[in-house]
């Protein structure tokens, strides 16, 4: 279960954002580059100093240790970073929850041997998919995705989209997805019954505009 509520969240470039996401709801965010989409996601994950309050299923963020919050509200940054030499050690010991790790990797197009691969030899696209696998293996209750398919070919893009859809369904995870691709936003809202928001003049507004 993961419902997310933002109240007057203030980042450097955006007007204060107030937003409610039901458990399992999909919200797609777009806007010109530099308009503060990534900063908004970083603020929700509490990576940058900012004002405003966030609740996860009614629990205020301030009542929770920051590292517990980040474990439950998972952010996938546009660029993935790795801190060990091999892929495997990046995954949590108790990975997967209901969805086991091999299933998760398989859904994103990898065999279990990928865990032995060296990070430095991964392609950009592989890194992006593995970063998503790493995040989902943490079993977060909310997903914050920043351009999750930017470097992927259509086949892998479809894999990522369906893996996220499956996760969102089984975990009832509210999902805030930043995407610059209008076709992807249309496709996902059509399939998943989500809504779209767009940043205009520093404000996050429902889209299409009335």
């Amino acid at each position, binding site marked *: 279960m993961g419902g997310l509520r933002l109240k007057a969240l203030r980042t450097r470039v955006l007007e204060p954002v107030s937003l409610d996401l039901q458990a399992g709801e999909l919200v797609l965010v777009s806007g010109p580059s530099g308009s503060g989409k990534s900063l908004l996601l970083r603020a929700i*994950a*509490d*990576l*940058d*100093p900012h004002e405003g309050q966030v609740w996860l299923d009614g629990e205020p963020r301030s009542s929770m*240790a*920051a*590292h*517990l919050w*980040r*474990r439950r509200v*998972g*952010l996938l*940054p546009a*660029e*993935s*970073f*790795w*801190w060990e030499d091999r892929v495997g050690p*990046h995954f*949590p010991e108790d990975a997967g929850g209901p969805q086991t790790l091999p299933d998760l990797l398989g859904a994103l197009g990898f065999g279990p041997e990928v865990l032995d691969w060296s990070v430095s030899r991964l392609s950009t696209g592989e890194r992006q998919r593995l970063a998503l696998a*790493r*995040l989902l293996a*943490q079993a977060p209750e909310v997903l914050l995705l920043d351009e999750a398919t930017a470097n992927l070919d259509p086949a892998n893009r479809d894999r990522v989209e369906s893996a996220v859809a499956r996760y969102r369904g089984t975990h009832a995870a509210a999902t805030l997805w930043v995407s610059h691709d209008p076709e992807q936003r249309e496709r996902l809202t059509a399939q998943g019954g989500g809504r779209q928001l767009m940043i205009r003049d520093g404000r996050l507004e429902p889209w299409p505009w009335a």
Partner: protein
Amino acid sequence: MGLILLSPFDLALASVLVLLLAAMSWWLHLGVGRRVLIAAARSTVQLMLVGLVLKVLFEQTHPGLVALMALFMLSVAGFEAMQRQKRRFRGPWGYGVGSVSMFVSSFGVLVLALTVVIRVEPWYQPQYLIPLLGMLLGNAMSGVAIALDSLTRGAWDARGPIEARLLAGATWEQAIASVRRDALRSGLIPIVNAMSTAGLVNLPGMMTGQILAGSPPMEAAKYQLLIMFLISAGTGLGAVLAVWIGSRHLFDERERLRLDRLKGEEA
């Protein structure tokens, strides 16, 4: 064997060698002749002044004066340690982290050595305290400066991986652990190297001094060993403290990496 006193004439003879060096630099267009002369003049003035100050201090054995001298040495060491860091903390932290760590470690080890090991009476007798403190601070200064420099630089360069670990639910201590380990290691390497080659290549300065002043070599060696152990403990403790305080200050109460607290990023 007694102490052979140097006359001003003896020193003047040695200084001719420095003048020759400066002349050679001019002759070979090295462009450092002027700097050599200025550095030689500086060291002459500084050492003479220190000699005078210590002479007065030794005659008085006044705790206030000793404390004043110690404080002066500490503040210079703190400033120097700050200068040697490329990405130091902004504001008072830039000076404070290094100075506090050096203060705690050097004075802790110093008081322990004077009261328990050497057992000087009174313990603040300047003839023992000032030279010991000087050696402790000098080494702690290098260790702390290198460790802090490596810590802040490492955090700056590893922002991506550190934040990735935070996003994976790590605590700030887990996220900075590898940077911290590298910082401590680099702070400790010089003193470990100094201990492992001590006596093989060159005689340590203090031992040389004691031998020149007429001490039996075994006594000089024992004193040198004592000092080395004290210096290692002081440097190690100083580096550990500095890295601990420094890495804590790299994160805020919400465990966010705060590189804006370092110099070099325009907020």
